[in-house]
């Protein structure tokens, strides 16, 4: 670690990387802070590139999409909400949508967050961060708790963008087995990460 040249004497409280990134993104949103953006750019573009390469997108498209994702992040920074998960989740969803839109050429309808029908449970406070357990430590622990078979399937979803049927073919398993495996994995993740255990 480089020499600690900081003004505050309380150097023991160092923000975690995710918290730091949230601060940076908020600085982009509030002040169009290009230095903050550059720091995020440096951290995330190699990850975006690696993710997109793993989806099977080819060279030129990868570079194009990496830039588009970061441009979207800059332009829509005001929509980033710390409470809904970290910057990595936010950028991942932007990248996922870019992949679906530009490479798959499909649409992925999603619910309208301003829909008056959005059914907020009477005991739920919309401002409160219900996903308090979605920090990096909890996520890492929850994911570690998955079996090797479950991880194999999950990686095929997130990175190779396969459907259940394609996964079944690739792993040479019955479709029903793949679906059960995924269901169990989702249940495990829900229990490990959900703030309130629903019925």
């Amino acid at each position: 670690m480089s020499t600690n040249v900081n003004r505050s004497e309380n150097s023991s409280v160092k923000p975690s990387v995710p918290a730091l990134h949230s601060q940076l993104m908020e600085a982009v949103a509030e002040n169009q802070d290009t230095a903050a953006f550059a720091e995020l750019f440096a951290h995330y573009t190699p990850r975006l590139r690696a993710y997109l390469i793993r989806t099977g997108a080819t060279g030129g498209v990868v570079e194009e999409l990496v830039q588009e994702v970061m441009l979207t992040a800059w332009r829509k920074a005001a929509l980033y909400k710390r409470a809904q998960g970290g910057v990595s989740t936010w950028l991942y969803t932007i990248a996922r949508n870019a992949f679906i839109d530009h490479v798959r050429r499909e649409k992925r309808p999603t619910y309208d967050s301003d829909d008056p029908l959005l059914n907020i449970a009477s005991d739920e406070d919309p401002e409160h961060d219900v996903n308090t357990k979605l920090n990096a430590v909890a996520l890492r622990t929850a994911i570690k708790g998955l079996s090797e078979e479950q991880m194999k399937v999950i990686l095929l979803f997130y990175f190779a963008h396969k459907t259940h049927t394609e996964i079944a073919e690739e792993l040479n398993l019955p479709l029903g087995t793949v679906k059960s495996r995924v269901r169990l994995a989702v249940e495990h993740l829900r229990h490990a990460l959900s703030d309130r255990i629903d019925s």
Partner: protein
Amino acid sequence: MIDSQPENTSPEHPHSNGVVSADHPEICHHIDGADLMAYASGNTPELLSLLIATHLTLCGQCRNTVDLLEAVGGHLFDEVVGADVVSPDDATSVVSAMAQTLDVIATDKTDGGPTIDDLSSTVREEKLSSDSRPTHLDIGEFPLVLQSYIGRNFDSQKWKRLLAGVESWRLIDDSSGLQASLMRVDAGRVMPRHTHQGRELTLILGGSMLDRDVVYRRGDVVEADQTTRHQPRAGDGDDCVCLAVLEGDVVLTNPLYQMLSKILPSN
């Protein structure tokens, strides 16, 4: 052939008939966890995504699950193998890519320019105005994402009568071959016994449905497939309104209906 998607709109509109569901009955029948994983990771065909998104509007539990599955995706993305190795060439290319991006930003006029329309949902068409709603069906009760698929063309004249007391309004098929229809079934009406060529997911939007000894209400999801033989019945009270997404056709199992289906024009 994706047209550039329109800018996100945040429509401000008073909810027209004031029936916001603080006392919404519990949803008991959710989207299958396997489908939520597929949805969260971006691998569901469009019409299945539509049904899921419509359910999510009404179901906080499933929204919570999708949020955490997206966070799992974000975590795996952040720790993806291959991103940690940055050679000097890579560093140079990152810097030049950054410079290029900052150049684009510097020339941004408004927040214009095509961007990935990601962030909240895409409301592709305007919310239906109150004049375009047929009187027997209040589309204002539909989640906005579904309304955007119905669009301005919704017309009470265009319902197709499938059978006595059963009407359907078909949405455009998606590119994977799924088909989707709104269905309106008279209260108390029994459907003909049938099975399916593939999966059928039905999301109840109004009234209720009794199927295989289970009562399904607004927000609930009914699943059936080629192993199912069933005869759903619309509950008493309000007409049952639902969104059905199908893989393949419905197959009537009563020989009399099979004969009729050969005589009647197909939908």
